[in-house]
């Protein structure tokens, strides 16, 4: 794998990129024990496919083998993450999520879940949100509605929410205006993992969240002054991919190639645009760190409104197919479902390049893996943790440079690892 130099010129619409580093990494990383902080273990959550259990693993410092901490959920619809608050919320089951299992990154061994009941034959979640309710802490909120009954459609009129940090949480009905407290941490990578990833579209100033219908719900986030809404009847042009304590991020509508992101520093309250070294999808944030995955269309021509999967299989394949077809996720009767099937039905091509930048300092690094199934799963002020197929690597930041990759762990447990965090060391160490 190779960490490529970012040779971009400074964009006039951005704050300066403080530094862009070029670090060459060996194609094959040395299999060395992880050198994480001695007080911490690396935890990762494996989840992403509807009918595959979400499992939390730990890699103890100095160890190579992942150790199962616990099964978090039998299947998964999505995972709502908040790295600033050190919370992961696993929503299950797929399609009709009603149970929300909480992984507290500071106490990952403990189990906690809350649930929101509803009649799935009557309503389904149109949207799912993580909110930071004043005095309540983090809450999960469902915008329930029925959009499939053409004769009697019932768009969401309220949020059905429950706190995940309260000792005795109760389901409450909140007005949609409560979306002013929205928390978003971005997309995860890995083909088309997860049935849904909650990244709302926004417009207006301050930014307003679109749910369904004519009404929009204001956030506390001002709009970038250099990026007004589009004129005309369809003014929405951005997605709100990150709302965290340190920064907020919006990206252009994904129908267009994303070659820049807009970052709001919540300390200075200044927006700036960061030009990216390549078009990306799947922007996400870990505190001030923003990551993205290089992506482009698999087909040179538009695929249209109806895509035949059999035709997709004939399109160009993201590199690493031979490896991905060996990574079984599930099987049903004679059908074996592999990681490559996620990529097979995707309309995007992933060449195997990752970008990591600091939303405050502008420090930007790229990592070339050459494998389509690559993503950053955690970035801290000292290290970047990223997954390539079934292996987790760590590259340390040192003197403004990103060091060479160190293999942390590898195995079938890793193929659906999209979230990682540093947690308390295991007691046996």
């Amino acid at each position, binding site marked *: 794998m190779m960490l490529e130099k970012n040779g971009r010129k400074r964009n006039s619409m951005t704050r300066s990129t403080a530094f862009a580093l070029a670090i060459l990494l060996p194609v094959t990383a040395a299999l060395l024990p992880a050198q994480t902080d001695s007080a911490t273990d690396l935890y990762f959550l494996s989840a992403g496919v509807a009918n595959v259990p979400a499992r939390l693993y730990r890699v103890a410092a100095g160890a190579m083998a992942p150790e199962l901490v616990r099964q978090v959920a039998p299947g998964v619809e999505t995972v709502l993450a908040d790295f600033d608050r050190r919370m992961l919320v696993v929503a299950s089951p797929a399609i*009709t999520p009603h149970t929300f299992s909480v992984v507290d990154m500071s106490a990952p061994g403990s189990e906690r879940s809350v649930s929101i009941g509803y009649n799935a034959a009557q309503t389904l979640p149109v949207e799912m949100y993580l909110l930071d309710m004043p005095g309540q802490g983090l809450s999960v909120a469902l915008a329930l509605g029925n959009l499939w009954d053409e004769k009697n459609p019932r768009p969401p009129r309220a949020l059905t929410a429950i706190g995940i940090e309260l000792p005795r949480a109760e389901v409450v009905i909140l007005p949609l205006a409560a979306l002013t407290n929205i928390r978003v941490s971005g997309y995860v990578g890995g083909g088309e993992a997860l049935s849904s990833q909650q990244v709302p579209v926004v417009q207006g100033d301050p930014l307003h969240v*679109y749910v369904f219908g004519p009404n929009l719900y204001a956030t506390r986030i001002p709009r970038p002054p250099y990026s007004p809404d589009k004129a005309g009847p369809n003014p929405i042009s951005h997605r709100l991919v990150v709302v965290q304590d340190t920064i907020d991020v919006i990206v252009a509508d994904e129908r267009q190639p994303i070659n820049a992101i807009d970052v709001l520093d919540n300390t200075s309250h200044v927006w700036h645009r960061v030009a990216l070294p390549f078009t990306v999808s799947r922007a996400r944030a870990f505190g001030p760190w923003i990551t993205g995955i290089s992506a482009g269309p698999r087909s040179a021509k538009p695929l249209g409104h109806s*895509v035949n*999967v059999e035709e997709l299989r004939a399109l160009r394949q993201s590199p690493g197919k031979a490896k991905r077809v060996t990574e079984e996720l*599930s099987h049903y*009767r004679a059908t074996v479902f592999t990681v490559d099937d996620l990529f097979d039905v995707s309309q995007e091509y992933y060449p195997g390049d990752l970008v990591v930048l600091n939303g405050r300092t502008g420090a930007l690094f790229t990592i070339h893996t050459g494998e389509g199934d690559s993503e950053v799963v955690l970035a801290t002020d000292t290290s970047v943790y990223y997954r390539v197929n079934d292996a987790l690597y760590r590259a340390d930041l040192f003197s403004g440079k990103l060091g060479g990759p160190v293999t942390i762990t590898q195995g079938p447990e890793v193929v659906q690892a999209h979230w990682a965090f540093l947690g308390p060391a295991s007691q046996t160490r």
Partner: protein
Amino acid sequence: MRLAIAGALVRKARPTINTDPSGVVNLFNNSNNFAVDSANNMTIYGESFLCQNTCNQAEIQVYENDDPNVTIHAITYAADGQINVGYSIGSGATAGQHCVYVETPYCVSNCGSYMVGDFSPTISSISQTSFVAGTSTPNVQISGTNFGTNCPKFAITPTAAGSTFVPASCADTQITGTMNIDPNAAAGQDTVTLTAEGFNSQGFLPAQSSETQSATTTISVTPPPPPTVSVSLNGATVSANSTIYINSTPALPLVASLVPGQPGVPLSGNATWEMDIDYAGPGAYQYSCTLTATTAANGSWSIGGTFGGQFCGGSAVVKGTYQGHTATLAFTILGQNAPAATVKSTLGASPWFIQQLANSESPGYLQFQSNGQPVYGAPNGFGIMQLDYHNNVYELWTWTTNVGDGLSLNTSNGTAAATFWASQLTAWQKYNATPGNEQVPMQANVSDGPCVFSYTPSGGQHPFSDGIWIKMYNSGSSYPFIQWAGSSWSVSLTNNYGFDYIGRVCSTTP
């Protein structure tokens, strides 16, 4: 009886028999005791038996005149202080003190006292010494002495109370009777104790205090051979290593019972049963089921009843355990197909594709191959509905279970498909309602084989959700027939190895 002795009467001294036990001595045992029903010689000791030598032997007589059952025979020797005579004591003699007298032509002696009674019985032999528990053996002869003519009593220890010896004929030296050994008698040596009852209504009266009433002998008891297992199907015996069939109903009215190892020796208590059925399925799979029951040992086990309407097949072993012994019978269970019309009737006609789906999974609605084993489709599908094995072996061997579980799975899929389609419509509506997004029309009709799926089906067309539903049976939720792909519809007729399941179902005639 008095013996007359001719001779001149001469007044002489009175004959005197010693009054202590030494006066009358039984030469049989050199004592003063005489057994009832015995004959031997007695010696009488005293003085003046020969009239102080003035009268001879022919002139004296010895007799007892109290008990007609006692006979004193002729004097065989006489001297002045000793007389020897024979005697016979009949079986009717009265036990107790008797007197014998010596009479001369001049005088009669005093009472020469002797005791008549029973002697200790002894057993010298028994005609059969080994017996099987639970058996009854007639004409067993016990030989010995002093049994008396009253039939003795018998006890057999330490065996269970049910063991007896029942005399049929009794004599003083031999008893013939029937030896009954309790079915639960433990193996080992048992003691047969004979308790004499004497010769007459007096019962046993010992001739002297040292005489005991009982005698013993030993016999050995062996348990009966363990029972064997017998299994029948519709009343016909199932032979070892034979093959039987779950019929098309399906039913398998097997009955198992234990056959006593010793004919005529009934079984008692309970028997425990186990039936293990193993099926070495295709590939590396090994399926098994186990039935258990407890019944009266002399009863029978309705295996068919324990199955409860759901059966399994393969290599079967019925194990019956009785008193620690386990007997087995091995045979093979295979299956017979139900008529297609019966299966179709069970499948019903809703949803519209269910019969086509079943007939495509197992053409001809067959649960079993021609060799009687379940229809198998790789990697793990069995029976009419080609259900994956998930710890329910009955689905392999009971077509009604297979169809029932397949219908349940399909019903569950129907709910999941409807919910999934609702979620896709939700996402589509949401996308189209989002300002700025290009409007994406509903997916056009999709043909797959003879089927046409539509958002607004008409004239024999089917809703898209039915396509999702059908495909779920083969692929689960991994490859939906149609789904919203974020900004377009995505249609997938095949799974990842190019198999068009919906097309196969649609092309199959019900």
